[in-house]
């Protein structure tokens, strides 16, 4: 028997917590790598600016980690609280990566503590940089392990169900399911991409707000270059994700592409609206869906007509897919133009309007992350474990989920405001110019 009200509120609360956590988690995965690169460049070039860049990013990072940790703790417990039936089954088969994730956190947490409190403690800067490697590795592996769990939800394997009993469980096979390679790679790379563009956005913003310091220019050029690399990688791996879907979750792809009838030479539908089952105002790219799905312009792509009515995911995921892909392509173009512009000394990349576009890039990337996750998760519905357990059967039977939803919504508002206030105060009170002077004065050098 399903408690409809508990189910409804459990879904909303899960969506809310995950959508909030993912912002901090993405930043938490990507920023350590960016700090590492900046510090490394700084040491290589013996350039104080890059070192300071790493230092200031670290300070902001600590704040986002804190919120990432507490919201992650929330979702970790909530999975059991809101989806006890699902977690009972999942615990039997996919607990291994979940467990290993805690080791990754542990590793990250320990070295982050050390890294934070050992600035300038070593004669040799490289030693300090070494301490950052476990932080970056730990953060990325958290993402790898948790995404393995999510991949399992999309393509469960590694066990058999006989009369409702789990037999022949193989945790390793469950971990390395067909959804895993593309999903893990796409999630990790988009986290790097988003972090790079968020940092670029901050640098561009400071340049717009009157500071013309070379420090910000170096930051901007470094992060845009990194963003270019990772956004190209994201698009390529995204293409592979589409091929994965065509093979293993064709209903998700068909719903995302509004592909109603099974056919060959399938066109890709971009944008448009759905009006009474009819697609209007859309751009149709001939053959493109067949290419996305099978790398062959004539290949047949399964349409929604092949699936029972009650197993078709909500069709609005098409809009989410469009948002994600549009932003992905846009960010590749933007960072590419910036890169060429730097090389060729095109003056317009230093114009105000162009910098505003870069400022916009950070929030847009985060929006793409949200849209991507919503597409992937809503596209899995009605299943929580595809083909095995319906979302409705996984939910709690408890009656108080609605109050918890209100409490947690309040919590996230407080945390969001706290983060914004603290981060902006932290950097406004201590602008780069002043910090550079202070540091030079400390060393008795020439303040310049």
């Amino acid at each position, binding site marked *: *028997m399903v408690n409809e009200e508990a189910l409804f509120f459990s879904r909303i609360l899960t969506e809310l917590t995950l959508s909030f956590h993912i912002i901090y988690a993405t930043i938490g995965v990507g920023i350590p790598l960016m700090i590492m690169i900046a510090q490394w460049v700084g040491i290589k070039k013996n350039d104080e600016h890059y070192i300071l860049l790493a230092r200031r990013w670290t*300070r902001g990072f*600590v*704040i986002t*980690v*804190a919120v990432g*940790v*507490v919201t992650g*703790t*929330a979702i*970790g*417990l*909530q999975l059991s*609280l*809101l*989806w*006890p*039936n699902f*977690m*009972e089954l*999942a*615990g*039997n088969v996919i*607990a*291994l990566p*979940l*467990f*290993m994730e*805690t*080791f990754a*956190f*542990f*590793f990250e*947490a*320990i*070295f*982050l*503590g*050390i890294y*934070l409190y*050992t*600035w*300038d*403690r070593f004669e040799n800067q490289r030693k300090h940089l070494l301490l950052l490697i476990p932080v970056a590795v730990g953060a990325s592996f958290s993402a790898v392990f948790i995404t393995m769990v999510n991949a399992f939800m999309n393509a469960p394997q590694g066990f058999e169900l006989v009369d409702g009993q789990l037999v022949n*469980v193989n*945790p*390793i096979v469950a971990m390395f399911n067909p959804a895993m390679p593309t999903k893990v790679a796409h999630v990790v790379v988009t986290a790097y991409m988003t972090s790079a563009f968020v940092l670029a956005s901050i640098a561009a913003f400071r340049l717009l707000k009157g500071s013309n310091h070379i420090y910000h220019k170096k930051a901007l050029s470094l992060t845009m270059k990194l963003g270019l690399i990772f956004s190209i990688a994201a698009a390529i791996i995204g293409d592979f994700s589409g091929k994965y879907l065509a093979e293993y979750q064709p209903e998700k792809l068909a719903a995302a592409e509004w592909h109603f009838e099974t056919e060959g030479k399938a066109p890709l539908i971009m944008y448009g609206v759905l009006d009474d089952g009819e697609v209007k105002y859309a751009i149709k790219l001939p053959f493109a869906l067949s290419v996305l799905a099978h790398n062959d312009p004539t290949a047949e792509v399964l349409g929604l007509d092949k699936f029972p009515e009650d197993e078709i995911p909500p069709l609005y995921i098409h809009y989410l897919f469009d948002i994600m892909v549009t932003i992905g392509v846009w960010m590749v173009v933007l960072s590419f133009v910036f890169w060429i512009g730097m090389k060729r000394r095109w003056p317009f990349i230093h114009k105000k309007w162009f910098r505003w576009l870069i400022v916009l890039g950070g929030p847009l990337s985060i929006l793409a992350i949200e849209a991507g996750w919503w597409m992937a998760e809503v596209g899995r519905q009605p299943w929580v474990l595809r083909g095995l357990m319906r979302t409705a059967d996984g939910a*709690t*039977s*408890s009656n*108080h*989920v609605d109050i*918890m939803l209100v*409490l*947690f919504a309040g*919590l996230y508002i407080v*945390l969001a405001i*706290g983060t914004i206030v603290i981060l902006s*105060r*932290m950097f406004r009170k201590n602008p780069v110019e002043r910090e550079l002077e202070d540091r030079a004065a400390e060393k008795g050098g020439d303040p310049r």
Partner: protein
Amino acid sequence: MNLEILGILVLWTFLFGYVIVASVDFGAGFFNAYSVYSGKKHILTNIIQRYLSPVWEVTNVFLVFFFVGVVGFFPKTAFYYGTILLVPASISILLLAIRGSYYAFETYGSRGHKGYAFMYGLSGLFIPASLSIVLTISEGGFVSMVDGNPVLDYWALFSSPLTWSIVVLSLAAVLYISAVFLTWYAHKAKDTKATELMRKYALLWAFPTIVTAGGIIVELRFHNPEHYARILDLWWLFALSFLMFIGTVWLIWNRKNYGRAFGLLAGQFALAFYAYGFSHYPYLLYPHLTIYDGFTNKAMAISLVTAFIAGLCLLIPSLYLLLRLFLFDKKYVEGKSDYHP
């Protein structure tokens, strides 16, 4: 030893780790708030901040490790405890979240906010209280099965003296553990004033801790006679634990070897904690769930244990490094150098 016992032993060990590390953390927050209130701020704040700053995130991981591990080793707990704990656990999460994030906001963002110190200190007392409810529920008598789903009887829970004694014990223990540790830490930092103050707090909280702990055993006799009988079988462990308690108090009273005093305290709590755990065996939730019917399949158990051992090989050296740099590094502890980013 069978896999069930190995699994619960691993988890219990991490829970013990959490109890000790988090108690120091929660208690320190409270003492800090109290010292702001009573005008002794300058004495304690430095000591407390020096210890807490590098380790706060590690503390949280102990807890995460425990609840993720429980679902891994004993998936049925997700069904039982997941269903009944929705409200109490959500409240704990909320408190943990406020506390953790505002700690970071204050430490790395804007130092010295007064209202914040109160919130931080107070939430540190509410968290152990709300977490300790889980132990009470595990004693049975508050959960019934309706239509195949477990349901928690809140009225019975909150009107039971057992609940409130466990809450009081958790508070007293937090303050006691934390005071003893900070006495030692302040002494290492050569901060005489702080040492004396913390010593006083340690002696103050020793008595309530031991009295409530004894009281709970007596109450169990009425609430859960089966568990009580098993506790009596293990009386010698509890007696040993009590002797260690006496040892700690004696050392602190005579201002002798605070390091050993903390060692004895850890021993006291370890003995009592494990003895309590053994006497609880085999139940995870009286009388609905034992470690045997809640256990995962063999393949998963073996892979979890393997992952655990591999993980430990990575963690123990790292933890050692952390402790060496911050707990045992003379210069750092004495505050002679500041390497804040």
